[in-house]
Every structure is written in structure tokens, then in C-alpha cells.
């Protein structure tokens, strides 16, 4: 079947089997490998993408269901050569170690800040509670999201201060 959707502002289409999971569609058919495929069981959250602005585990959604929806992946975060403040925060606050969970964390953080520009640390921890960092870097991930909350997009620079 033909699946057509909008991803990072661009309309993309591919022919897939109905049983194709969204994460594989994004990685294998659309060649956007920034979305990571992790636990396969809806637990780890590495595969999180935004569907109509909300974080969704793409290993637990069919590509067919995503047809007609608007998606955003980590490739769609940087705009005109400027990193999203969330990405800058992860650099500035050392919010990653191995980096495997990072794309999902970045998108969940972006969705949180779009809704709640000044979350408490408890709200940040709740928002990322469906995502596992195996390096156990949660403290710095929370700091990174706090950094992004304190640096709104219009003040973004390409080279964040440490």
C-alpha cells in the first residue's frame, strides 16, 4: 500500500506492506536514520518522533496509521543552520553520553517546551519518564532541558556557551 505523510515539512511517500511499523518506514523507506530503533517493546523511547506535535513511540504505530499526519524527527529540529535550543542545551549541559536515546529525548523535550515553556524539574522528569537512558545521564538531561527553557529560540546561537 502507498503511505504518504508530511515529515519535517516535506511530503514523502513510499510503497509498504500494511504491517510496516512507523520506525522502520522512517529509517528504511524514508532514509531518515536519526530516529533510533531500540527495545522494540514500547519501553525505551529511543524511537520517539512527533506526530501532529506530540511524542509517539514509532515502534508501536503502523506506518499506515501515520498516513496523512504531520511528523517531525530529529532531522527536522535544526533550522537554517541554527540548532534548536534543546539541542544546544544537550551540548551545553553534557546531556548525552552514548547518544542512543538522544533523538527521542530531544523531541520529547521540544514538545514539552512548546506546551509548557517553563516546566519544573518534576515536570521535565515526568515528561521523559517513558524514555530510558542506559548511561543513566538523567541529571544532565534534565539540566539540558532546563537550559533550553531558559534560552528561547529567538536567542539561539549556533555556538552555545558551555
Amino acid at each position, binding site marked *: *500500500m502507498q503511505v504518504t505523510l508530511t515529515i519535517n515539512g516535506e511530503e514523502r511517500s513510499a510503497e509498504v*506492506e*500494511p*504491517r510496516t*511499523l512507523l520506525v522502520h518506514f522512517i529509517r528504511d523507506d524514508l532514509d531518515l536514520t536519526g530516529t533510533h530503533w531500540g527495545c*522494540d*517493546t*514500547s*519501553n525505551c*523511547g529511543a524511537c*520517539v518522533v512527533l506526530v501532529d506535535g*506530540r*511524542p*509517539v*513511540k514509532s515502534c*508501536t*504505530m*503502523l506506518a*499506515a*496509521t501515520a*498516513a496523512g499526519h504531520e511528523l517531525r524527527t530529529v532531522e527536522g529540529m535544526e533550522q537554517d543552520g541554527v540548532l534548536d535550543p534543546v539541542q544546544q542545551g544537550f551540548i551545553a549541559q553534557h546531556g548525552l553520553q552514548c547518544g542512543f536515546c538522544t533523538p527521542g529525548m530531544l523531541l*520529547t523535550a521540544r514538545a514539552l517546551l512548546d506546551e509548557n515553556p517553563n516546566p519544573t524539574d518534576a515536570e521535565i522528569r*515526568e*515528561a521523559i*519518564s*517513558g*524514555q530510558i537512558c542506559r548511561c543513566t545521564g538523567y541529571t544532565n538531561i534534565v539540566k539540558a532541558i532546563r537550559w533550553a527553557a531558559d534560552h528561547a529560540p529567538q536567542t539561539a546561537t549556533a555556538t552555545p556557551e558551555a
Partner: protein
Amino acid sequence: MQIPAAFEYERATSVEHALELLRSGGPDARLLAGGHSLLPMMKLRLAAPELLIDLDALSDELGYVREADGEVRIGALTRHREILESALIAARFGVFIDAEKLIADPVVRNRGTIGGALCQADPAEDISAACAVVGARLVIQGLDGQRTISMRELHSGPYETTIRDAEMLVEIRVPVQPGIGSAYEKVKRRVGDWAIAAVAAAVRLDGGTIASGAVALTAVGGDVTAQRASDALTGAPPSEETFAQAARLAAEDCAPQTDQRGSAEYKRHLANELTLRALRSATARALREES
């Protein structure tokens, strides 16, 4: 890599269309709501429907929370997140908010639906007990019309419901009653996990008496409704003695099994303790409602 077995896929464009597809697909057709229970089962090949009917396009039509005719009406495709964000539910039914906060994690709650959870009929699923204690009625739509059933009538066994082949759950109706307070208490191993045990409770106060009370249990076997515990509450004062009696009966009447989440003895202990806590919390909320 976990990939579901192959299936035919249809996208329903209306409730009528979904019911027609269900009829033509027969017993091997399944409805796909949020997918966060069904797709993992399909990936593990515990479920292998021949026809999958995607309800995604009905999300707006069947995704709502509104009050009408003395009831709060929740569309079957209302996502867990939307229930958590509903001021109407927060003001009236604490048990739903308590339970929804404990279902999986926020990302899963963005997709999972109340109707999908109820129809999955997982014995460890949280929303059934919440619906039971507030007397929710379930509207089942068939090609020839609607019928309404109680929570006790929905599940016929683990992962089995009394909904027939060409029928679907379309709405959950919760009566609005003055003086009611409700709560949900759950113990789980970590964020996102199923319950080791959980308890829903509701009390409706009238003066110094519990005019009606209800207790329902999650993940400890037996019927979702703890009938003797519920009966012990009705007509009694909202006291620690009453709560202790109801908790003892709830623990006696459940049938937990020893598994990787804990021993039967531990789960029975939890049923007792969580009933106490849920009743205290529900009563405190009912008193606030009365004042």
C-alpha cells in the same frame, strides 16, 4: 526484530464503515484504536488478526469528554492524555485522574485510548476498576443499534469481552452524583509497568453515612468488582473501622497468583492496604465535595 504477521488493512471512515468491515471480516477481524496493547501482542504473535480495521480517522468523532443528561460521556477513542487534561473529569472523578497518571508513561498515553484499554481486557489494566467504582455504563454499537452494559458485564475472561463480532464500544457514560469521592491506588515495580496490585474505590456520602460505596481490584484475579467489600461500605459510617472491614473483605475475595511481580501473599496484602488508602482518599474527596 519484532514484526507483526501479515494482515489485510482497512481504514474506517465512520462507525458504520467500521461495523461493516467487522461484519465482512468475521471473527478474525480486529479494531485498531491507539494500538499500544494490540500492536505489541501482534509483534509477539500473540495476536494475528487477518483483517485490521484502523480507527485512527475516527479520533475526532469518538474522542471527546462532555456532560449531558446527568452523565459525563467519554468517547471510546478519547486518548489517556485527553482524559488527564479534562477539567470536567478532574472536577468530578478523582479515580480517573489517579489511574490515568499511572497508566504506562506520558508518551504511551499520547496514543492509548480508554476504549482500547477496556476492550483489551488485560487483567492488569487500570481503567476497568476505575470505571467499575463510579458505575460507568458502556455503550456498544452494532449494525442494528446500540445496547448498554455495566463494567461487570464487559469482560468474560482475560483478554476476552462480551462484545460480539460486528459490534464496537463507542462511549463510556459515568453518572454524575453529588457527594461522591473516588480514588485509585496502585503499586508497580517502576514507571510504565503494569500493576502488582491496584485498587479503585468510591464513596457517596449523605450526612454522616456512606450512602453507597464501591471497591474494585486490578491485577489480583477474580471479578473486577469486590462485591462484599462494596456491600460492607453501604450504609456504614465513613470510619477507619468500616474501611478496615471493607479492606479485609476485598483481600479475602481476590484470587492473586504468584508470578514475577510478586507472591500471592504479597498481592493479597497489597489489596488490603491499597483498599484502605483508596477509601481514605475517596472519603476526603467526598467531604471536600460536600463542604
